[in-house]
């Protein structure tokens, strides 16, 4: 069984937000609603400085705090290691939003449930890649099987030493960042 993850190379990101638009398109989201974000921050001091763009979305943690606190069990981890939400049992209590240290979960006020990035699981199961990955013009994102040592993502992580954001928070995220 695969264990899906993503690697993100922030040195390649130009902050164009194509990933956000592709995600909204794929998931039928309103223009104000999104499952991924690009945050930026300045690095270094003048005259040697630049701006880093950091694409963010659900980290699909192995030890997902949102799943642990979900009273109805609506949040679950699929057999491929993707953290998903059952829209039929979520009550919209928003406990998962408080529990997520990355603050990557969003309320869908139309359905009254709390949603999140689902790694475009329907595309992936059909043999494709998530919309944010295939649409990225600078190939910032690599999607693949973390269990397969020969997959592109496993090799990338091994070569670059890419790390999750704040691994010290102990949730074992499955999105790895190469930031320099």
């Amino acid at each position: 069984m695969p264990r899906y993850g993503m690697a993100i190379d922030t040195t390649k990101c130009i902050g164009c937000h194509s990933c956000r638009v592709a995600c909204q398109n794929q998931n039928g989201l309103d223009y104000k609603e999104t499952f991924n974000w690009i945050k930026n921050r300045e690095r270094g001091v003048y005259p040697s400085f630049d701006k880093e763009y950091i694409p963010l979305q659900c980290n699909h943690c192995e030890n997902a705090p949102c799943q642990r606190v979900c009273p109805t069990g609506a949040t679950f981890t699929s057999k491929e290691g993707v953290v998903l939400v059952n829209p039929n049992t979520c009550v919209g209590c928003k406990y998962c939003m408080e529990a997520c240290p990355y603050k990557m979960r969003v309320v869908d006020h139309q359905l009254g449930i709390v949603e999140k990035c689902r790694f475009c699981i329907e595309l992936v199961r059909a043999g494709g890649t998530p919309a944010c990955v295939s649409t990225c013009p600078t190939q910032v994102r690599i999607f693949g099987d973390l269990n397969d040592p020969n997959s592109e993502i496993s090799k990338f992580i091994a070569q670059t030493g890419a790390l999750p954001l704040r691994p010290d928070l102990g949730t074992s995220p499955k999105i790895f960042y190469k930031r320099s």
Partner: protein
Amino acid sequence: MQESAWGWLIITYLFLAGAGSGAFLAAVACDLLAPDWSKALAKAGSLVSGPLVAIGTLCLVLDLEAGLWEPWRQIYLANNLSSMIAWGVIVLSIFIPIALLYAAALNEIGFIGKFANKYVRPLEIVGSLFALGTATYTGVLIAVVNGVPFWNTPLMPVLFLASAISTGLAAAMIVAAIIDVATIKTLSNFALGHVIFLSVEALVLMLLVFMSLTRSTEAAYSANLLISGLLSPYFWGLVVILGIVVPFFLSVIEYLEYGEMPKALVVGADILVLIGGMSLRALIVFSGTPPQII
């Protein structure tokens, strides 16, 4: 300051569940420890306990979205026992009926009261355990959240329990003063309760703030929001001065003067404790800051 997913409805729930379970504990303490001169307070405490927790629970339900529009979804609420909300649902659905039965028993309301009157002691013992559970659980609910480091400390349930007892006692004293004006004199005996529990609350609050300042960057950020940042006027004004210091000294005077203090000041001190309790919960929720991730 990042906006919390939870707002005033959850804050009101945290406050009312605390005050209601505290009122139950105050009522049981009065009925057991000093039965002759504290009957009025026991009756008043038992009367407000169930309704306060029930109104609080209603706020909790109103904060739901799909679970409010399609109420049958609420049957799933106890599915995952690793969630504190699931435990809360269980504790609340046992505590509220016990509190209402206890109110009926002490106040001899109808035939249910006559029936429940035979089981006052068992109601008090089991009810107290669930009251302690309710008061503590509201603190545990936010203490287990690792998305907000400021909340993620075992001091939180202790603070909520101390605040629940003082706000519960205040709610019971206000109702006792309303339903029986003659009790105003005996209320002075309970001012000592305020002196004790407001001190405990102040001590735990001080520990929480001091320890948060060194615990982690985010917890320190939250603590600084309270003591010197954007929220500091509310923290010092509403929680510390109006909610703890002023009622503390009013209660000391009330206890020493024994029944000589004007009624307005006695009830005023209790209202201040309630304002302080509500403000404390609001400020803890609003000062919650997530980890810096990028």
